[in-house]
């Protein structure tokens, strides 16, 4: 496993963040002046595997 020693700049320098999914994490970081690009993503069909499979066969 990599440690902070392997990547000393991760928490020591300025963070650049891409947040995927829940926007609360992006909001929190923004409130602490951390620049964030938020990607609004959620699992296909709300995470319902049966619906997702149907949709896949229906061409989405």
């Amino acid at each position: 496993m990599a440690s902070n020693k392997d990547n000393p700049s991760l928490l020591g320098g300025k963070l650049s963040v891409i947040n995927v999914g829940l926007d609360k994490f992006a909001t929190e970081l923004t409130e602490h002046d951390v620049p964030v690009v938020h990607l609004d993503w959620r699992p296909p069909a709300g995470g319902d595997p049966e619906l997702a499979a149907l949709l896949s066969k229906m061409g989405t």
Partner: protein
Amino acid sequence: MDIIEKANEEAIRRMLNAESVLIDVVPAGDIVPDLRDKMILHAGPPIEWDRMCGPMQGAIAGITVFEGWAGDLEQAVTMAASGGITFDANHHHDAVGPMTGMTTVSQPMLVVENKTTGNKSYCAINEGLGKVMRFGGNDAEVLDRLAWIRDVLGPAMGKALRDMGGIELKPLIARGLSMGDEMHQRNVACSGLVLRAIAAAMAQTSDDATALSEALAFISANDQFHLNIAMAMGKAIMDPVRNIEGSSIVTAMSRNGTDFGIRVSGTGDEWFTAPVEMPEGLYFAGYTEADANPDMGDSTIVETIGLGGFAMGAAPAVAGFVGAGAASEAANYTHRMSEICAAENPEWTIPSMDYLGVPTGIDVRLVVDSGIAPTINTGIAHREPGIGQVGAGVVRAPMACFEQAVRCLAEKLGIS
């Protein structure tokens, strides 16, 4: 899937080729199919008396008195509750109605013809804001206004429209979008454009200067006058899109204050329903969320054709009015709706979004896959009968309706 893609191409072709014209105003009993005495058409999917919300029951009591079927509101309620009145959905009779959506025999109906396909659709005339029947108002002031619309305004508009050969709506909508309307909660520009188009013909065909003056003043004082015209147009555009085998395009979204319902082209005229949601919005002075009735009305036919919440980017001013955030947020609503639609409308564009065409053709597959529900701009009625409008807001269509539609379409196509 090829069959779905081809069916949706046909659905979009029919939507974009529709040429809608406001041609007449006619008493509902003369023109709405199968409408008869002691029958009330209401907004939304079908619903029985016991499940109707307060404003819907209030409007039914009011219109029953208005039609002379009962002597007072109490008698009217007894009559309605005991099966003395037949109820059905506007959508089953080529019609639509805002909020409670009352349609009865004597009411004057706006007639919009889709010249491309020849079908006609109907909607009652907008009564104005505040205490009105569509929001559940039912006192003497409300009924007197309806009588004036029936006896003076409706006939005057019908005469003028026949004389002038109607008003073409596709170019009027295009112009309204460029003037800041989204045609659901903001119709200021389009109402003005309708008045400009019809005023001369109303003057030409009137022999009563006082009645003419009152009619023109009523239209000019009502910023939402055009909403009901847009609704009849929406119905005229979407009805020919029904029943295309394999199509996943939504042909109607509608709510009765209890249930939200959608119909989808490839699944025939079946309603897919789920409990209706509460709008989030802003309230008139003296009212709060505790006073609000859940979402209601056939007016979501406007979103079904790509206007209203889908065209929010054209109307930054309305974002504040409906509590949807800053004016700069308006474009985001339209971008999000683009993700669940099959096409853009090249003739209805939004100048401030680099002439982006309004999102057109809601695809139930995209709604369920993305988890993005259609956004609707709406008025908010008081939950008790007889009070009227208390605010305006934004509401989302329930995802369960779209999930049911996807499953039904899959079954029809033999997909499991």
